[in-house]
Protein backbone atom coordinates (compact mmCIF):
# COMPACT_ATOMS: atom_id res chain seq x y z
CA UNK A 1 0.00 0.00 0.00
CA UNK A 2 2.97 2.35 0.38
CA UNK A 3 5.30 3.11 -2.50
CA UNK A 4 8.57 4.79 -1.53
CA UNK A 5 9.22 6.20 -4.99
CA UNK A 6 5.85 7.91 -5.19
CA UNK A 7 6.42 9.23 -1.68
CA UNK A 8 9.81 10.65 -2.63
CA UNK A 9 8.38 12.37 -5.70
CA UNK A 10 5.54 13.83 -3.67
CA UNK A 11 7.88 15.14 -0.99
CA UNK A 12 9.94 16.79 -3.67
CA UNK A 13 6.87 18.36 -5.27
CA UNK A 14 5.63 19.67 -1.92
CA UNK A 15 8.84 20.85 -0.35
CA UNK A 16 11.05 21.47 -3.35
CA UNK A 17 12.62 24.84 -4.02
CA UNK A 18 10.89 27.80 -2.44
CA UNK A 19 7.72 25.99 -1.43
CA UNK A 20 9.14 24.79 1.89
CA UNK A 21 10.01 28.39 2.70
CA UNK A 22 6.40 29.54 2.35
CA UNK A 23 5.11 26.52 4.22
CA UNK A 24 7.62 27.31 6.93
CA UNK A 25 6.75 31.01 7.09
CA UNK A 26 3.31 30.44 8.60
CA UNK A 27 4.46 28.34 11.58
CA UNK A 28 7.32 30.78 12.15
CA UNK A 29 4.82 33.64 12.29
CA UNK A 30 2.76 31.74 14.86
CA UNK A 31 5.80 31.21 17.06
CA UNK A 32 6.89 34.85 16.73
CA UNK A 33 3.38 36.01 17.70
CA UNK A 34 3.32 33.72 20.71
CA UNK A 35 6.69 35.07 21.84
CA UNK A 36 5.34 38.63 21.54
CA UNK A 37 2.14 37.73 23.37
CA UNK A 38 4.05 35.98 26.14
CA UNK A 39 6.24 39.06 26.51
CA UNK A 40 3.24 41.40 26.58
CA UNK A 41 0.80 39.38 28.67
CA UNK A 42 2.78 36.75 30.53
CA UNK A 43 1.50 33.22 30.94
CA UNK A 44 -2.29 33.28 30.73
CA UNK A 45 -4.37 30.20 30.04
CA UNK A 46 -7.30 32.01 28.42
CA UNK A 47 -5.06 34.00 26.07
CA UNK A 48 -3.12 30.89 25.14
CA UNK A 49 -6.35 29.04 24.41
CA UNK A 50 -7.73 31.94 22.31
CA UNK A 51 -4.56 32.28 20.29
CA UNK A 52 -4.10 28.56 19.65
CA UNK A 53 -7.78 28.06 18.88
CA UNK A 54 -8.26 31.18 16.77
CA UNK A 55 -5.01 31.42 14.88
CA UNK A 56 -3.41 27.97 14.93
CA UNK A 57 -6.34 25.58 14.68
CA UNK A 58 -8.88 27.74 12.83
CA UNK A 59 -6.59 29.39 10.27
CA UNK A 60 -3.16 27.84 10.05
CA UNK A 61 -4.01 24.13 10.05
CA UNK A 62 -6.63 24.41 7.25
CA UNK A 63 -4.38 26.57 5.06
CA UNK A 64 -1.41 24.23 5.46
CA UNK A 65 -3.82 21.33 4.88
CA UNK A 66 -5.03 22.91 1.65
CA UNK A 67 -1.49 23.56 0.41
CA UNK A 68 -0.25 20.06 1.29
CA UNK A 69 -3.42 18.13 0.39
CA UNK A 70 -4.11 19.67 -2.99
CA UNK A 71 -0.41 20.24 -3.70
CA UNK A 72 0.26 16.51 -3.37
CA UNK A 73 -1.69 15.72 -6.52
CA UNK A 74 -3.24 18.88 -8.02
CA UNK A 75 -0.26 20.27 -9.96
CA UNK A 76 0.49 16.86 -11.49
CA UNK A 77 -3.05 16.50 -12.80
CA UNK A 78 -2.98 20.13 -13.86
CA UNK A 79 0.09 19.89 -16.09
CA UNK A 80 -0.69 16.36 -17.26
CA UNK A 81 2.48 14.75 -15.90
CA UNK A 82 0.32 12.44 -13.79
CA UNK A 83 -0.05 10.13 -16.82
CA UNK A 84 3.59 9.08 -16.47
CA UNK A 85 2.87 8.09 -12.90
CA UNK A 86 -0.38 6.33 -13.76
CA UNK A 87 1.21 4.35 -16.59
CA UNK A 88 3.55 2.64 -14.12
CA UNK A 89 2.49 -0.73 -12.69
CA UNK A 90 1.44 0.77 -9.38
CA UNK A 91 -2.12 0.46 -8.16
CA UNK A 92 -4.00 3.74 -8.18
CA UNK A 93 -5.30 3.35 -4.60
CA UNK A 94 -1.66 2.79 -3.62
CA UNK A 95 -0.71 6.08 -5.26
CA UNK A 96 -3.50 7.89 -3.41
CA UNK A 97 -2.64 6.22 -0.11
CA UNK A 98 1.04 7.11 -0.44
CA UNK A 99 0.26 10.71 -1.35
CA UNK A 100 -2.13 10.87 1.60
CA UNK A 101 0.56 9.67 4.00
CA UNK A 102 2.94 12.31 2.67
CA UNK A 103 0.31 15.06 2.84
CA UNK A 104 -0.59 14.09 6.40
CA UNK A 105 3.06 14.04 7.42
CA UNK A 106 3.74 17.46 5.90
CA UNK A 107 0.60 18.98 7.45
CA UNK A 108 1.47 17.54 10.85
CA UNK A 109 5.07 18.72 10.77
CA UNK A 110 4.17 22.24 9.66
CA UNK A 111 1.07 22.71 11.83
CA UNK A 112 1.00 20.42 14.88
CA UNK A 113 4.66 20.86 15.80
CA UNK A 114 4.52 24.69 15.76
CA UNK A 115 1.24 24.51 17.71
CA UNK A 116 3.00 22.54 20.43
CA UNK A 117 5.95 24.92 20.50
CA UNK A 118 3.66 27.97 20.54
CA UNK A 119 1.62 26.41 23.34
CA UNK A 120 4.73 25.73 25.38
CA UNK A 121 5.91 29.30 24.85
CA UNK A 122 2.52 30.79 25.71
CA UNK A 123 1.85 29.11 29.02
CA UNK A 124 4.21 26.16 29.38
CA UNK A 125 1.45 23.62 28.80
CA UNK A 126 -0.64 24.83 31.76
CA UNK A 127 -3.93 22.89 32.03
CA UNK A 128 -2.71 20.66 29.19
CA UNK A 129 -3.65 23.38 26.68
CA UNK A 130 -0.61 22.99 24.44
CA UNK A 131 -0.98 19.21 24.29
CA UNK A 132 -4.74 19.42 23.72
CA UNK A 133 -4.41 21.76 20.74
CA UNK A 134 -1.51 19.73 19.39
CA UNK A 135 -3.69 16.62 19.48
CA UNK A 136 -6.46 18.58 17.77
CA UNK A 137 -4.02 19.75 15.09
CA UNK A 138 -2.75 16.19 14.58
CA UNK A 139 -6.27 14.79 14.25
CA UNK A 140 -7.49 17.53 11.94
CA UNK A 141 -4.32 17.20 9.81
CA UNK A 142 -5.41 13.68 8.90
CA UNK A 143 -8.97 14.67 8.00
CA UNK A 144 -7.98 17.85 6.13
CA UNK A 145 -5.28 16.08 4.13
CA UNK A 146 -7.69 13.32 3.05
CA UNK A 147 -10.46 15.80 2.24
CA UNK A 148 -8.30 18.16 0.21
CA UNK A 149 -6.49 15.34 -1.55
CA UNK A 150 -9.91 14.19 -2.75
CA UNK A 151 -10.71 17.74 -3.87
CA UNK A 152 -7.44 17.77 -5.80
CA UNK A 153 -8.50 14.74 -7.82
CA UNK A 154 -12.05 16.00 -8.38
CA UNK A 155 -11.61 19.60 -9.43
CA UNK A 156 -9.08 21.87 -11.08
CA UNK A 157 -10.13 24.62 -8.73
CA UNK A 158 -9.39 22.47 -5.70
CA UNK A 159 -7.47 25.16 -3.83
CA UNK A 160 -10.31 27.67 -4.07
CA UNK A 161 -12.94 25.17 -2.99
CA UNK A 162 -10.73 23.97 -0.17
CA UNK A 163 -10.28 27.53 1.04
CA UNK A 164 -13.98 28.28 0.69
CA UNK A 165 -14.69 25.26 2.89
CA UNK A 166 -12.00 26.12 5.43
CA UNK A 167 -12.59 29.86 5.68
CA UNK A 168 -16.21 30.48 4.69
CA UNK A 169 -17.93 27.31 5.87
CA UNK A 170 -16.01 26.63 9.07
CA UNK A 171 -15.31 30.20 10.14
CA UNK A 172 -18.27 32.21 8.84
CA UNK A 173 -21.18 29.78 8.69
CA UNK A 174 -19.86 27.90 11.71
CA UNK A 175 -20.24 31.06 13.81
CA UNK A 176 -23.67 31.92 12.40
CA UNK A 177 -25.48 28.62 11.89
CA UNK A 178 -25.24 26.11 14.71
CA UNK A 179 -25.87 23.14 12.41
CA UNK A 180 -22.82 23.95 10.29
CA UNK A 181 -20.63 23.23 13.28
CA UNK A 182 -21.59 19.57 13.27
CA UNK A 183 -20.07 19.29 9.82
CA UNK A 184 -16.75 20.92 10.57
CA UNK A 185 -13.41 19.19 10.89
CA UNK A 186 -12.30 21.89 13.30
CA UNK A 187 -15.12 21.08 15.76
CA UNK A 188 -14.49 17.35 15.51
CA UNK A 189 -10.85 17.81 16.38
CA UNK A 190 -11.81 20.19 19.20
CA UNK A 191 -13.98 17.41 20.64
CA UNK A 192 -10.90 15.23 20.81
CA UNK A 193 -8.91 18.10 22.32
CA UNK A 194 -11.63 18.60 24.93
CA UNK A 195 -11.18 15.00 26.03
CA UNK A 196 -7.43 15.53 26.38
CA UNK A 197 -7.57 18.87 28.20
CA UNK A 198 -10.55 18.00 30.35
CA UNK A 199 -11.14 21.58 31.52
CA UNK A 200 -13.54 24.23 30.24
CA UNK A 201 -10.99 26.14 28.20
CA UNK A 202 -11.18 23.84 25.19
CA UNK A 203 -14.78 23.21 24.21
CA UNK A 204 -16.51 21.73 21.22
CA UNK A 205 -20.10 21.68 19.96
CA UNK A 206 -19.85 18.04 18.94
CA UNK A 207 -19.75 15.10 21.31
CA UNK A 208 -16.68 12.88 21.26
CA UNK A 209 -18.27 9.68 19.85
CA UNK A 210 -19.95 11.59 17.00
CA UNK A 211 -16.72 13.44 16.26
CA UNK A 212 -14.61 10.28 16.20
CA UNK A 213 -17.03 8.43 13.96
CA UNK A 214 -17.32 11.37 11.56
CA UNK A 215 -13.55 11.86 11.45
CA UNK A 216 -12.91 8.22 10.60
CA UNK A 217 -15.76 8.06 8.09
CA UNK A 218 -14.69 11.24 6.30
CA UNK A 219 -11.04 10.21 6.11
CA UNK A 220 -11.73 6.69 4.87
CA UNK A 221 -14.46 7.71 2.43
CA UNK A 222 -12.43 10.57 0.98
CA UNK A 223 -9.39 8.35 0.47
CA UNK A 224 -11.44 5.55 -1.09
CA UNK A 225 -13.27 7.91 -3.41
CA UNK A 226 -10.03 9.67 -4.42
CA UNK A 227 -8.67 6.26 -5.40
CA UNK A 228 -11.80 5.59 -7.47
CA UNK A 229 -11.52 9.01 -9.15
CA UNK A 230 -7.90 8.30 -10.04
CA UNK A 231 -8.87 4.94 -11.57
CA UNK A 232 -11.10 6.67 -14.09
CA UNK A 233 -9.18 9.90 -14.47
CA UNK A 234 -9.58 11.71 -17.75
CA UNK A 235 -7.19 14.46 -18.59
CA UNK A 236 -9.14 17.42 -19.86
CA UNK A 237 -7.67 20.40 -21.61
CA UNK A 238 -6.98 23.67 -19.86
CA UNK A 239 -10.04 24.52 -17.72
Amino acid at each position, binding site marked *: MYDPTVARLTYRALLGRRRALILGA*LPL*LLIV*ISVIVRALVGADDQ*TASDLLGGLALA*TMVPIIGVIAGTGAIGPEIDDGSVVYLLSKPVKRPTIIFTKLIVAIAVTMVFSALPTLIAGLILNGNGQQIAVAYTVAALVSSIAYAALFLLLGTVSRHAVVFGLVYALVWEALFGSLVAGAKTLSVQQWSLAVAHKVAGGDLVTSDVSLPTATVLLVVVTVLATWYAGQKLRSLTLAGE*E
Partner: protein
Amino acid sequence: MAVEHPVTVPSGDQTRIHNIGYRTYDGPRLGRSYATRSLYSQSLRGAYGLGRSVKSKVLPMLLFVVMCVPAAIMVAVAVATKAHDLPVDYTRYAIIMQAVISLYVASQAPQSVSRDLRFKTVPLYFSRPIETADYVRAKYAALASAMFILTAAPLIVLYVGALLAKLDFADQTKGFGQGLVSVALLSLLFAGIGLVIASVTPRRGFGIAAVIAVMTISYGAVSTLQAIADAQGSSSAVPWIGLFSPVTLIDGLQSAFLGANSAFPGAVGPSNGEGVVYVLAVLGLIAASYGLLMRRYKKVGL
Protein backbone atom coordinates in the same frame (compact mmCIF):
# COMPACT_ATOMS: atom_id res chain seq x y z
CA MET B 1 20.50 13.45 -50.30
CA ALA B 2 22.83 10.82 -51.60
CA VAL B 3 22.60 12.00 -55.16
CA GLU B 4 24.48 15.14 -55.87
CA HIS B 5 22.80 17.43 -58.22
CA PRO B 6 24.94 19.41 -60.50
CA VAL B 7 24.46 22.97 -59.39
CA THR B 8 24.24 25.45 -62.16
CA VAL B 9 25.27 28.79 -60.88
CA PRO B 10 23.09 31.47 -62.43
CA SER B 11 25.00 34.48 -63.33
CA GLY B 12 24.44 38.16 -62.83
CA ASP B 13 21.08 39.72 -62.10
CA GLN B 14 19.17 36.47 -62.49
CA THR B 15 19.56 35.74 -58.79
CA ARG B 16 16.58 37.12 -56.93
CA ILE B 17 14.10 36.05 -54.34
CA HIS B 18 10.81 35.34 -56.00
CA ASN B 19 8.00 37.66 -55.23
CA ILE B 20 5.12 35.20 -54.98
CA GLY B 21 2.47 37.85 -54.82
CA TYR B 22 1.54 38.25 -51.15
CA ARG B 23 0.21 41.68 -50.35
CA THR B 24 1.94 43.64 -47.67
CA TYR B 25 -0.23 44.96 -44.86
CA ASP B 26 -1.13 48.56 -45.55
CA GLY B 27 -4.04 48.97 -43.13
CA PRO B 28 -3.90 51.17 -40.05
CA ARG B 29 -1.37 50.22 -37.40
CA LEU B 30 -3.18 50.58 -34.08
CA GLY B 31 -0.04 50.80 -32.03
CA ARG B 32 0.98 50.55 -28.43
CA SER B 33 -1.90 52.21 -26.65
CA TYR B 34 -4.44 50.12 -28.53
CA ALA B 35 -2.61 46.90 -27.60
CA THR B 36 -2.48 48.02 -23.97
CA ARG B 37 -6.19 48.82 -23.97
CA SER B 38 -6.97 45.41 -25.48
CA LEU B 39 -4.88 43.66 -22.83
CA TYR B 40 -6.70 45.69 -20.16
CA SER B 41 -10.18 44.87 -21.41
CA GLN B 42 -9.38 41.20 -21.96
CA SER B 43 -7.91 40.90 -18.46
CA LEU B 44 -10.91 42.69 -16.96
CA ARG B 45 -13.34 40.39 -18.77
CA GLY B 46 -11.21 37.42 -17.77
CA ALA B 47 -11.46 38.42 -14.11
CA TYR B 48 -15.19 37.68 -14.29
CA GLY B 49 -14.77 34.66 -16.57
CA LEU B 50 -16.28 36.43 -19.60
CA GLY B 51 -14.89 34.98 -22.78
CA ARG B 52 -13.70 31.91 -20.89
CA SER B 53 -15.30 28.56 -20.16
CA VAL B 54 -18.50 28.19 -18.12
CA LYS B 55 -16.57 26.55 -15.28
CA SER B 56 -14.35 29.57 -14.81
CA LYS B 57 -17.37 31.90 -14.69
CA VAL B 58 -18.82 30.06 -11.68
CA LEU B 59 -16.52 31.30 -8.93
CA PRO B 60 -16.22 35.04 -9.75
CA MET B 61 -19.93 35.34 -10.45
CA LEU B 62 -20.76 33.44 -7.25
CA LEU B 63 -18.52 35.73 -5.20
CA PHE B 64 -20.09 38.77 -6.88
CA VAL B 65 -23.57 37.56 -5.93
CA VAL B 66 -22.43 36.77 -2.39
CA MET B 67 -21.12 40.36 -2.13
CA CYS B 68 -24.39 41.92 -3.30
CA VAL B 69 -27.05 39.78 -1.62
CA PRO B 70 -26.44 41.00 1.97
CA ALA B 71 -26.66 44.60 0.73
CA ALA B 72 -30.01 43.86 -0.90
CA ILE B 73 -31.25 42.21 2.29
CA MET B 74 -30.16 45.21 4.38
CA VAL B 75 -32.00 47.56 2.04
CA ALA B 76 -35.10 45.39 2.22
CA VAL B 77 -34.95 45.39 6.01
CA ALA B 78 -34.44 49.18 6.12
CA VAL B 79 -37.40 49.76 3.81
CA ALA B 80 -39.67 47.30 5.63
CA THR B 81 -38.94 48.68 9.11
CA LYS B 82 -38.99 52.31 7.89
CA ALA B 83 -35.62 52.84 9.56
CA HIS B 84 -33.97 56.28 9.48
CA ASP B 85 -30.59 54.88 8.63
CA LEU B 86 -29.08 51.87 6.90
CA PRO B 87 -28.13 49.04 9.29
CA VAL B 88 -24.51 49.20 8.09
CA ASP B 89 -22.31 52.15 7.10
CA TYR B 90 -21.08 52.32 3.51
CA THR B 91 -17.50 52.29 4.72
CA ARG B 92 -18.07 49.31 6.99
CA TYR B 93 -19.51 47.01 4.33
CA ALA B 94 -16.20 46.00 2.70
CA ILE B 95 -14.65 45.33 6.11
CA ILE B 96 -17.49 42.95 7.00
CA MET B 97 -17.21 41.15 3.66
CA GLN B 98 -13.41 41.01 3.69
CA ALA B 99 -13.30 37.19 3.51
CA VAL B 100 -15.18 37.27 0.20
CA ILE B 101 -12.97 40.05 -1.17
CA SER B 102 -9.81 38.17 -0.16
CA LEU B 103 -11.10 35.01 -1.83
CA TYR B 104 -11.85 36.95 -4.99
CA VAL B 105 -8.41 38.53 -5.24
CA ALA B 106 -6.77 35.22 -4.33
CA SER B 107 -8.61 33.37 -7.10
CA GLN B 108 -8.35 36.02 -9.81
CA ALA B 109 -4.83 37.45 -9.36
CA PRO B 110 -3.12 34.14 -10.24
CA GLN B 111 -5.64 33.63 -13.03
CA SER B 112 -4.51 36.94 -14.47
CA VAL B 113 -0.72 36.53 -14.38
CA SER B 114 0.30 32.98 -13.42
CA ARG B 115 -1.12 31.39 -16.55
CA ASP B 116 0.81 33.77 -18.78
CA LEU B 117 3.98 32.66 -17.03
CA ARG B 118 3.13 28.97 -17.10
CA PHE B 119 2.21 28.79 -20.78
CA LYS B 120 5.06 31.12 -21.67
CA THR B 121 2.82 33.66 -23.35
CA VAL B 122 4.60 36.62 -21.78
CA PRO B 123 7.26 36.70 -24.54
CA LEU B 124 4.44 36.73 -27.07
CA TYR B 125 2.96 39.83 -25.45
CA PHE B 126 6.32 41.53 -25.56
CA SER B 127 6.70 40.70 -29.24
CA ARG B 128 3.81 43.15 -29.74
CA PRO B 129 4.38 46.89 -29.51
CA ILE B 130 3.63 46.90 -25.76
CA GLU B 131 6.41 47.28 -23.23
CA THR B 132 6.95 46.06 -19.68
CA ALA B 133 5.29 49.09 -18.17
CA ASP B 134 2.25 48.68 -20.43
CA TYR B 135 1.80 45.03 -19.49
CA VAL B 136 2.12 45.74 -15.77
CA ARG B 137 -0.18 48.77 -15.94
CA ALA B 138 -2.82 46.92 -17.97
CA LYS B 139 -2.85 43.91 -15.64
CA TYR B 140 -2.79 46.05 -12.49
CA ALA B 141 -5.53 48.35 -13.76
CA ALA B 142 -7.66 45.40 -14.90
CA LEU B 143 -7.53 43.60 -11.55
CA ALA B 144 -8.04 46.83 -9.60
CA SER B 145 -11.07 47.66 -11.77
CA ALA B 146 -12.48 44.18 -11.30
CA MET B 147 -12.06 44.53 -7.53
CA PHE B 148 -13.65 47.98 -7.65
CA ILE B 149 -16.66 46.56 -9.50
CA LEU B 150 -16.91 43.83 -6.87
CA THR B 151 -16.70 46.20 -3.90
CA ALA B 152 -18.62 49.18 -5.34
CA ALA B 153 -21.63 47.22 -6.65
CA PRO B 154 -23.05 46.47 -3.16
CA LEU B 155 -22.52 50.13 -2.21
CA ILE B 156 -24.57 51.17 -5.23
CA VAL B 157 -27.27 48.72 -4.15
CA LEU B 158 -27.25 50.26 -0.67
CA TYR B 159 -27.27 53.82 -2.05
CA VAL B 160 -30.10 53.27 -4.51
CA GLY B 161 -32.06 51.44 -1.83
CA ALA B 162 -31.46 54.25 0.65
CA LEU B 163 -32.70 56.85 -1.83
CA LEU B 164 -35.77 54.76 -2.66
CA ALA B 165 -36.48 54.47 1.06
CA LYS B 166 -36.36 58.32 1.16
CA LEU B 167 -33.51 58.51 3.65
CA ASP B 168 -31.73 61.85 4.00
CA PHE B 169 -30.17 62.62 0.59
CA ALA B 170 -27.17 64.72 1.65
CA ASP B 171 -26.23 62.34 4.46
CA GLN B 172 -26.45 59.26 2.24
CA THR B 173 -24.54 60.85 -0.64
CA LYS B 174 -21.71 61.85 1.70
CA GLY B 175 -21.50 58.34 3.12
CA PHE B 176 -21.66 56.83 -0.36
CA GLY B 177 -18.83 59.05 -1.59
CA GLN B 178 -16.64 58.16 1.40
CA GLY B 179 -17.41 54.49 0.83
CA LEU B 180 -16.38 54.73 -2.83
CA VAL B 181 -13.04 56.38 -1.97
CA SER B 182 -12.34 53.70 0.61
CA VAL B 183 -13.14 50.76 -1.69
CA ALA B 184 -11.10 52.36 -4.50
CA LEU B 185 -8.06 52.41 -2.21
CA LEU B 186 -8.87 48.89 -1.03
CA SER B 187 -9.06 47.66 -4.63
CA LEU B 188 -5.70 49.18 -5.53
CA LEU B 189 -4.05 47.83 -2.40
CA PHE B 190 -5.45 44.29 -2.64
CA ALA B 191 -4.87 44.04 -6.39
CA GLY B 192 -1.26 45.16 -5.96
CA ILE B 193 -0.49 42.68 -3.18
CA GLY B 194 -2.28 39.85 -5.00
CA LEU B 195 -0.49 40.46 -8.29
CA VAL B 196 2.97 40.73 -6.72
CA ILE B 197 2.52 37.37 -4.98
CA ALA B 198 0.90 35.71 -7.99
CA SER B 199 3.54 36.92 -10.44
CA VAL B 200 6.22 34.98 -8.55
CA THR B 201 4.76 31.54 -9.20
CA PRO B 202 3.58 29.95 -12.45
CA ARG B 203 1.44 27.50 -10.46
CA ARG B 204 -2.11 28.82 -10.15
CA GLY B 205 -3.09 26.71 -7.14
CA PHE B 206 -0.02 27.68 -5.23
CA GLY B 207 -0.54 31.36 -6.00
CA ILE B 208 -4.09 31.20 -4.65
CA ALA B 209 -2.96 29.62 -1.40
CA ALA B 210 -0.11 32.12 -1.00
CA VAL B 211 -2.35 35.17 -1.53
CA ILE B 212 -5.04 33.93 0.83
CA ALA B 213 -2.41 33.03 3.42
CA VAL B 214 -0.98 36.55 3.35
CA MET B 215 -4.43 38.14 3.55
CA THR B 216 -6.07 36.00 6.26
CA ILE B 217 -3.07 35.09 8.39
CA SER B 218 -1.92 38.71 8.60
CA TYR B 219 -5.46 39.79 9.51
CA GLY B 220 -5.82 36.97 12.05
CA ALA B 221 -2.48 37.76 13.64
CA VAL B 222 -3.08 41.51 13.75
CA SER B 223 -6.59 41.31 15.18
CA THR B 224 -5.45 38.79 17.81
CA LEU B 225 -2.59 41.04 18.88
CA GLN B 226 -4.90 44.07 18.91
CA ALA B 227 -7.44 42.27 21.08
CA ILE B 228 -4.71 41.26 23.52
CA ALA B 229 -3.19 44.76 23.57
CA ASP B 230 -6.64 46.23 24.20
CA ALA B 231 -7.38 43.74 26.99
CA GLN B 232 -4.02 44.55 28.60
CA GLY B 233 -4.92 48.23 28.74
CA SER B 234 -2.29 49.36 26.25
CA SER B 235 -4.85 50.81 23.83
CA SER B 236 -2.28 53.20 22.37
CA ALA B 237 -0.53 50.23 20.74
CA VAL B 238 -3.71 49.12 18.90
CA PRO B 239 -3.43 51.52 15.92
CA TRP B 240 0.25 50.77 15.43
CA ILE B 241 -0.37 47.01 15.30
CA GLY B 242 -3.08 47.69 12.71
CA LEU B 243 -0.43 48.79 10.21
CA PHE B 244 0.56 45.21 9.53
CA SER B 245 -2.38 43.80 7.61
CA PRO B 246 -4.16 45.08 4.47
CA VAL B 247 -7.68 44.96 5.92
CA THR B 248 -6.81 46.83 9.12
CA LEU B 249 -4.84 49.38 7.07
CA ILE B 250 -7.96 50.28 5.11
CA ASP B 251 -10.05 50.17 8.28
CA GLY B 252 -7.70 52.53 10.11
CA LEU B 253 -7.42 54.90 7.15
CA GLN B 254 -11.14 55.27 6.70
CA SER B 255 -11.83 55.70 10.40
CA ALA B 256 -9.21 58.45 10.55
CA PHE B 257 -10.26 60.41 7.46
CA LEU B 258 -13.46 59.04 5.94
CA GLY B 259 -15.75 59.22 8.94
CA ALA B 260 -16.00 55.48 9.47
CA ASN B 261 -16.47 53.67 12.76
CA SER B 262 -13.45 51.53 13.39
CA ALA B 263 -13.71 47.78 13.71
CA PHE B 264 -10.65 47.81 15.97
CA PRO B 265 -11.14 46.44 19.48
CA GLY B 266 -12.45 49.19 21.69
CA ALA B 267 -13.80 50.83 18.51
CA VAL B 268 -11.02 53.41 18.75
CA GLY B 269 -9.50 54.13 15.36
CA PRO B 270 -6.23 55.94 14.79
CA SER B 271 -6.09 59.68 15.45
CA ASN B 272 -5.40 62.11 12.60
CA GLY B 273 -1.65 62.03 13.18
CA GLU B 274 -1.59 58.25 13.13
CA GLY B 275 -3.98 58.36 10.18
CA VAL B 276 -1.31 60.13 8.13
CA VAL B 277 0.98 57.17 8.76
CA TYR B 278 -1.83 54.90 7.54
CA VAL B 279 -2.26 56.92 4.33
CA LEU B 280 1.49 56.87 3.75
CA ALA B 281 1.58 53.10 4.39
CA VAL B 282 -1.27 52.43 1.94
CA LEU B 283 0.16 54.65 -0.79
CA GLY B 284 3.65 53.27 -0.14
CA LEU B 285 2.39 49.69 -0.45
CA ILE B 286 0.56 50.48 -3.71
CA ALA B 287 3.67 52.16 -5.15
CA ALA B 288 5.88 49.34 -3.88
CA SER B 289 3.75 46.63 -5.48
CA TYR B 290 3.81 48.56 -8.78
CA GLY B 291 7.58 48.87 -8.54
CA LEU B 292 8.02 45.19 -7.66
CA LEU B 293 5.84 44.16 -10.60
CA MET B 294 7.91 46.33 -12.95
CA ARG B 295 11.07 44.74 -11.60
CA ARG B 296 9.55 41.27 -11.92
CA TYR B 297 8.73 41.72 -15.59
CA LYS B 298 12.02 43.37 -16.60
CA LYS B 299 13.34 39.91 -17.40
CA VAL B 300 10.76 37.22 -17.39
CA GLY B 301 10.83 33.85 -19.11
CA LEU B 302 12.73 35.39 -21.98
